[in-house]
């Protein structure tokens, strides 16, 4: 029985017959190939590095500190939103409304602080709690009332957009005075790396949650086999609704950071539908499948980095912003086709 399943140690050291006879370089190459196939993040990391090298070769200002800061600031909000999207995709759901939670949270913070005189930090926390409520509502409608989450969150996307536009009269607002200083410096300064540091911390935290905790294991289970997971006694509703809440809170936080950085609270912050689309793109390019059951938060961060590099690099080279979308579209398709192929390889144990 053991002979019809070929099992490979991740180290790939001694399992295949005849490795000892191979020259050392060959063995290293095999090892690289195996890690490459085993670790989803590896391929997108290589793409990110290659793009860096390419743009630096063409425009030597690509790797200057000020330009790296630009890239970091474009990467951070998408990476934070994509983290929540990855958790949802793994559990077999999706959230388009993150784009509007992103725009709404800074307004809520402004309303609480300026209209209800709530102090700075509580105002931020309150708006994140409201974001969590939006996530809960998305989850409740999708999971308990059984409306597909794509449709649910399409609905909440427009509802929230209406709410933002109505309450703001479609005018931008200023950052509340109480936050325009230390707090802004901490969360989203115009120059400085704190937004990226938040993004990295969030990505690392949720990557650990995904791979090392019960919550992560159960997220994979409900996305991989909902019937089986429920039969094993996993509270699948709680897991899915919880992930909706995480996604909304992260989107709200990213929106607040972005509003601080651009120093205005804009109803069109992030470009509305751009946010969920870019976040899903980052997740997909990073190696998360829409089918549920598998995915990686670290990959989504690298996906967001690749998107930011492309946009920035095109700017530097002087190509107009328009072909950026052509490349983005191609990147999504290529990475998905590669993903299908690789996961088939992984499944058959050929790696």
């Amino acid at each position, binding site marked *: *029985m*053991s002979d*019809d*399943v070929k*099992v490979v*140690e991740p180290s790939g050291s001694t399992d295949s017959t005849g490795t000892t006879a191979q020259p050392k370089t060959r063995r290293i190459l095999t090892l690289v190939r195996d890690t490459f196939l085993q670790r989803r993040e590896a391929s997108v990391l290589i793409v990110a590095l290659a793009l860096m090298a390419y743009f630096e070769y063409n425009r030597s200002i690509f790797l200057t500190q000020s330009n790296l800061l630009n890239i970091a600031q474009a990467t951070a909000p998408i990476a934070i939103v994509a983290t929540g999207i990855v958790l949802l995709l793994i559990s077999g759901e999706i959230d388009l409304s993150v784009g509007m939670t992103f725009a709404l949270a800074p307004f809520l913070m402004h309303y609480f602080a300026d209209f209800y005189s709530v102090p700075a930090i509580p105002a931020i926390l309150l708006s994140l709690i409201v974001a969590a409520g939006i996530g809960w509502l998305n989850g409740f409608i999708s999971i308990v009332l059984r409306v597909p989450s794509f449709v649910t969150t399409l609905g909440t996307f427009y509802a929230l957009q209406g709410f933002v536009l109505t309450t703001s009269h479609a005018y931008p607002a200023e950052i509340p005075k109480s936050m325009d200083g230390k707090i802004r410096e901490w969360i989203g300064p115009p120059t400085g790396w704190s937004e990226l540091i938040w993004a990295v911390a969030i990505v690392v935290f949720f990557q650990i949650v995904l791979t*090392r*905790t*019960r919550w992560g*294991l*159960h997220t*994979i*289970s409900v*996305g*991989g*086999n909902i*019937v*089986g*997971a429920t*039969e*094993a*006694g*996993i509270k699948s509703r709680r897991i899915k609704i919880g992930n909706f809440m995480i996604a909304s809170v992260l989107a709200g936080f990213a929106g607040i950071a972005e509003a601080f950085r651009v120093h205005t609270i804009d109803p069109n912050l992030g470009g509305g539908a751009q946010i969920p689309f870019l976040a899903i793109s980052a997740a997909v390019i990073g190696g998360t499948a829409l089918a549920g*059951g*598998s995915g990686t938060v670290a990959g989504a961060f690298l996906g967001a980095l690749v998107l930011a590099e492309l946009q920035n690099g095109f700017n530097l080279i002087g190509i107009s912003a328009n072909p950026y979308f052509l490349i983005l579209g191609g990147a999504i398709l290529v990475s998905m086709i590669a993903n299908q192929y690789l996961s088939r390889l992984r*499944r*058959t*144990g050929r790696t």
Partner: protein
Amino acid sequence: MSEVLRMEHIAKKFGALTALRDVNLHLEQGEVLGLIGDNGAGKSTLIKIICGYHRPDGGRLFVNGTEMSLRSVDHARSVGIDTVYQDLALVNELSVYHNMFLNRERIRWPFLNNAKMRRLAKEHLDDMGVNIPDVTVEVAKLSGGQRQAIAVARSVYSDATILLLDEPLAAMGAKEGALILDLVHDLKRRGKVSIIIIAHNYAQVLDVCDRVNLLQHGEITFDKATSDTSMQELTDLVVSEYRTARARRS
């Protein structure tokens, strides 16, 4: 030998359809009981009553001598009754050991204690004679027989004392089937678990079961020790049922 499960006059209707008329069944400690019968005879309804999914309309059910009314699958599981379904309830994307401990994970707060789960899973599978080369491999990479074996091992590990195997040999090659039969033989030898197997293949039933029950039209019409019956007798029973039904129709 003590009785772990007894059903008396169990009946179940779905609207106008009578699925079970009057089922009387018993299962002894450490026994392997084969439950056969044609499609529509009520096998799956019977299993779903035992595992707590359906509640019977009439009759009594005893677990370890105590009369019980099973409220839910969880309730049945808490008294030691567990079912291994064909769909297996395994998560393909997870490793063997994570599946073994699904929702019963060992924790070193706040993290999963993967090292401990790996070790325990390996020990337990070895102990049951299930040969899985590497417990860290995703179950998607395993064969149907191995997956079934893991599902059975998981139920046994979670202290199931009455195990219901729903068509464990369906859609399985000879080699794969042999793996499961060996596992059942092994469980029988240890005598801790009592098993009801639902099957179509009479040869396999005769090979592994102590006793055979035939379910026809919502009643147990035949109950004999395997040593007192034969392939021929079982086949004749089912075929004669078909013949009389046809004679009645024409």
